[in-house]
């Protein structure tokens, strides 16, 4: 926290908890991940050859067959799971225009308000 400085152990725990709520997204590849920032990684099976929120056998994402960021375009272009991203054919053709390389520019993908 910025304006309240923890002065005992309980306050530090509250501080860590609050920070964990307000921190920015954390890349799964970041290694080692500070404990307070550790993301929730859903472990699941991948039946389709489409990288979703899957993890590889070590619990990370480095070993997936395609980069996780590829998932964005998998939804976007093929309408594989259309609810997650804007419709690029009719209403939001430029939604991904500022995002040349998903691994670097994904922050430029904005929310849309239909």
């Amino acid at each position, binding site marked *: 926290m910025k304006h309240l400085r923890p*002065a005992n152990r309980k306050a530090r725990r509250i501080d860590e908890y609050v920070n964990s709520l307000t921190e920015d997204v954390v890349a799964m590849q970041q290694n080692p991940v500070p404990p307070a920032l550790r993301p929730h990684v859903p472990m699941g099976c991948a039946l389709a050859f489409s990288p979703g929120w899957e993890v590889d056998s070590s619990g990370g994402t480095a070993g997936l067959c395609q980069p996780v960021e590829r998932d964005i375009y998998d939804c976007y272009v093929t309408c594989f799971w259309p609810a997650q991203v804007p419709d690029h054919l009719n209403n939001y053709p430029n939604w991904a225009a500022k995002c040349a390389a998903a691994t670097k520019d994904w922050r430029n993908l904005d929310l849309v308000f239909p």
Partner: protein
Amino acid sequence: MTPTITRTFRLGEFHEFYAGETRFAYIVPAGAIFELDGPAAAVLDDLAVSELSLEELVDRLGALGLNAEDAIGLLGELTQSRAIATGDAPAETPQNPPAVFPLQTLVLNLTNQCNLSCGYCYEYGADKVATPQGKPKFMDFETARAAIDMLFAESGERRGVHITFFGGETLMNFPLLERVVEYANQQAAALGRSIDFSLTTNATLLTPAIIQFLSVNRIGVTVSMDGPPELHDALRVFANGRGSYDIIAPKVRELLAVHRTRPIAARVTLTSGVTDVGRIYRHLKHDLGFHEVGFAPVTTSPDRLYAIGERGMGDVFEQFRILAGEYLEFALRGELHGFSNVSDTLAELYQGVNKSHPCGAGLGLMGVGPSGDIAPCHRFVDSDTHALGNIATGIDRAKQQAFLDRGHIDGKYDCHSCFARPLCAGGCHHEAYVRYGDTGHPNLHYCDWIRDWTDLCLRIYGTIHAQNPGFLENFAERKGL
């Protein structure tokens, strides 16, 4: 459509204190201590006058130079730490302890007999709760062994357990103490656990051989002692009325000279006329050489002659304040002072404890008397009214639960608006029973005193935090985990 939410902010429950120029908030529902910066303090000042909406607060913070994003961030921090709240925030109470709480400490009352006749004794005095009639006066080895087996069996996953030897006068049954230490060490080794021991004594029966045994076995020692001769001998007397000071002083000096493996403490009972805290401290710490000295006012009905009374407690506080000031000077130089009442309070503030119950009695700590009866603590040993089973039949879980329900902070309505409740939780169960006939009654006769003491220790804590924070790391290790 975006729903319109009008949020009105009000103050949460906290106690504010200063250490020099630095401003702190002690957040009561959590036991957390935060240092406040200027804007945070300004919000609390504004809300102390009246409740304000989000927009009003953002405006006021804007005048202090915070942009809207920063202001909302600050309000978020204050809300999440519970320093402020919106109108609809629910009240929070401390979590209940786990239903089956692993035992950590067993107090073995090796005997209920004593060779002194101290006027204020809670075991034999006018306010006694014990009913020793028809029960053994000395614990036998079978009973002690069963008690130790119970301690290990009921201690769950704890890596270490603790045994405290108590009485009566503990050393009147020293042969049993020796056997218990041997047996408990064997059991601990066989089970891969650690164990340590401590003992409370009036020091009259210490001998060179006993002191050697205590030192070799690293047994912590607390000596009940009330100060220099004329104060000590006021109530700590033999049955013929003769004071015990002259008997114990040379033995205590030898104990302190020979037993170097554990710190040795003096425990002072303050009574009417025995309230010269500074003088008592200096005698015990500097003339005799105890490592630390702890003080507690006698537990008694208010009408006993030795009861301190309200004005006397005011004097005691004033002297505690002076001695605590000395503690602070030591701490700022990085030195440990022997006034253990301050150390104990700072340790709890450092951790940020928030108690559902005033102490571990009936939770992680239990007492066992010579008859094998299990009690919530040593002060209730041998009392039929308060027994929580017997080592032959095990802990009576229904009685234990009833005792804990009665002592839970939730039921002590007087405490619900008090900032000192995270540490105090209503105060000693035994004191409450002697005063009010109910172990779950808050000790209302000490409220102002406890609040003043908590505030004083918070300010000491804050000053150390601001000027010599490394000192507080002395309290990083939690006692007896």
